[in-house]
């Protein structure tokens, strides 16, 4: 079987696919790629099923040796990659010759870059998914971030290669945003009008201690008459909970499955991938949209990703 040898892992590189949904009753969150749109796009470029496993790199990429030939694509944020010193373009399928080394640098835009390889990364699935769940040490490559010396196996190709490249328009439409669109959270009504006004007009900064479990935000505190805590209930992906101190936390892919803080809003499905590209110190704002808008934005996004006619030219 073909391999990728990890010569340096980068800051935090994990194996991810589209996650394992359906284990809420056991307290297991879905995990999966923080920017699933980039993962899907990368897989499409190398002729993989959209949910094939790939490497998710965070802020600083790694160095990888390919003993055999391979076809790769780098998607998501531009980390300035080079193959034996030659620059590699983002969102383009690139041939790798046996013995070549791919060096992925540090980010020039967002938080995450994906390395997709034709055939996909093969690991032992946990609950039907290859994705790494870092907190519990489950899934992915031995349940952890990659280290120097790790050897990843590449699977056999299963689908034909696409004939064309994604259009600039398509890439632009799928690009991450800093103005996150949200629908009202289940406790939206428990926040007084001035608090809601402050939430929707303030700029928030992503805190340093943000990760795949959640993004802590700094900025205008949001106060609620009834206090912060309530009876613990299930929490959805992208929920924005307000802690006792009034600061928002966006619950993310490795989130706790239940929680006791009030949720003021929830990031819409079409913007969840944007959350995965936020870096510490990035500044974001929230824009309320209605349910119909949330739905039509997602449908448009899926239409773009689901059809080679619109995506590739």
């Amino acid at each position, binding site marked *: 079987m073909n391999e990728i040898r990890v010569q340096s892992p980068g800051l935090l590189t994990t194996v991810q696919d589209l996650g394992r949904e359906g284990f809420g009753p056991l*307290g297991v969150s879905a995990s999966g790629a923080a920017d699933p749109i980039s993962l899907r796009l990368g897989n499409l470029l190398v002729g993989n099923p959209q949910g094939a496993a790939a490497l998710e790199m965070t802020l600083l990429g790694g160095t990888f040796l390919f003993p055999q030939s391979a076809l790769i694509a780098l998607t998501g944020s531009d980390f300035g990659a080079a193959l034996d010193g030659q620059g590699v373009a983002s969102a383009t399928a690139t041939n790798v010759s046996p013995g070549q080394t791919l060096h992925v640098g540090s980010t020039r835009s967002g938080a995450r870059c994906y390395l997709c390889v034709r055939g996909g990364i093969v690991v032992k699935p946990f609950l039907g998914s290859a994705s790494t769940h870092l907190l519990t040490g489950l899934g992915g490559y031995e349940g952890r971030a990659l280290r120097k010396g790790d050897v990843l196996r590449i699977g056999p190709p299963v689908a034909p290669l696409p004939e064309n490249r994604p259009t600039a328009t398509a890439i632009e439409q799928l690009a991450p945003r800093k103005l996150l669109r949200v629908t009202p959270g289940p406790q939206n009504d428990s926040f007084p009008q001035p608090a809601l006004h402050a939430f929707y007009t303030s700029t928030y900064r992503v805190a340093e201690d943000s990760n795949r479990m959640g993004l802590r935000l700094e900025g205008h505190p949001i106060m609620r008459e009834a206090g912060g805590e309530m009876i613990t209930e299930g929490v959805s992906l992208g929920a924005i909970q307000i802690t006792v101190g009034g600061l928002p936390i966006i619950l993310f892919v490795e989130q706790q499955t239940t929680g006791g803080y009030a949720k003021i809003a929830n990031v819409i499905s079409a913007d969840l991938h944007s959350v995965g590209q936020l870096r510490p110190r990035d500044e974001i704002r929230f824009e309320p949209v209605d349910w119909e808008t949330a739905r039509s934005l997602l449908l448009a996004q899926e239409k773009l990703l689901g059809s080679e006619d619109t995506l590739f030219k």
Partner: protein
Amino acid sequence: MSAAPAEPVQFKRASDRSLLIYFGHKITRQAHEDVRRLLCLLELEPIPGVRNLHPAYCSLLVTFDPLQSHHDRLEKILLQYIGRLDKVALPEPREVEIPVCYGGDYGPDLIDVSSLHGMTPEQVIALHSSSSYLVYFLGFVPGFAYLGGLPEALVTPRLATPRRKVPFGSVGIAGNQTGVYPVSTPGGWRLLGRTPISIFRPERKDLSLLAIGDSVRFAPISPTQFAALERA
């Protein structure tokens, strides 16, 4: 068997792909059983497009694929399910015994908890291990059971400063709750002891030792028994 939900259910949209169903807004056994019945029915007869279920004290969060379903359609179907809850028979609760080595390195907060309540460590152990606890649901992290039924005399506030790392298997109390850490995580619960048995077992088919609705007891063991069980 019991009657239909005591209180009218309430639906609340949680996100563009999820819906919360509330059986009242109090932690009661009736609400717990309603949640369990609906969970049971949804697992037996899955609704197309539904992707995940998150039971809690008196609510169930239903996550769906927004390309396949939407809130209004789901609410209509769920109302039919809820109308049938009185016909869902819940299995008899399983009795699960968890061996715990109390005190020492296993339960570094036992002494403090004892003095807070003016008891001896032996009295705290006797009280904690004499009660039967209900698993309201699993959540937070894989296999973590929200246990109800802590004796009033043991209700203790959580630590002012959480520990950076609580070893897996630690048995703690916080407020009127008690629980076992399935994995090593940061945590602010007061640790009374530790169990040598695995709570979350990814290598087994039944991943979690505990399930919603179980009845749990803690059985005190010695450090020697702890070591023997740990090796087993």
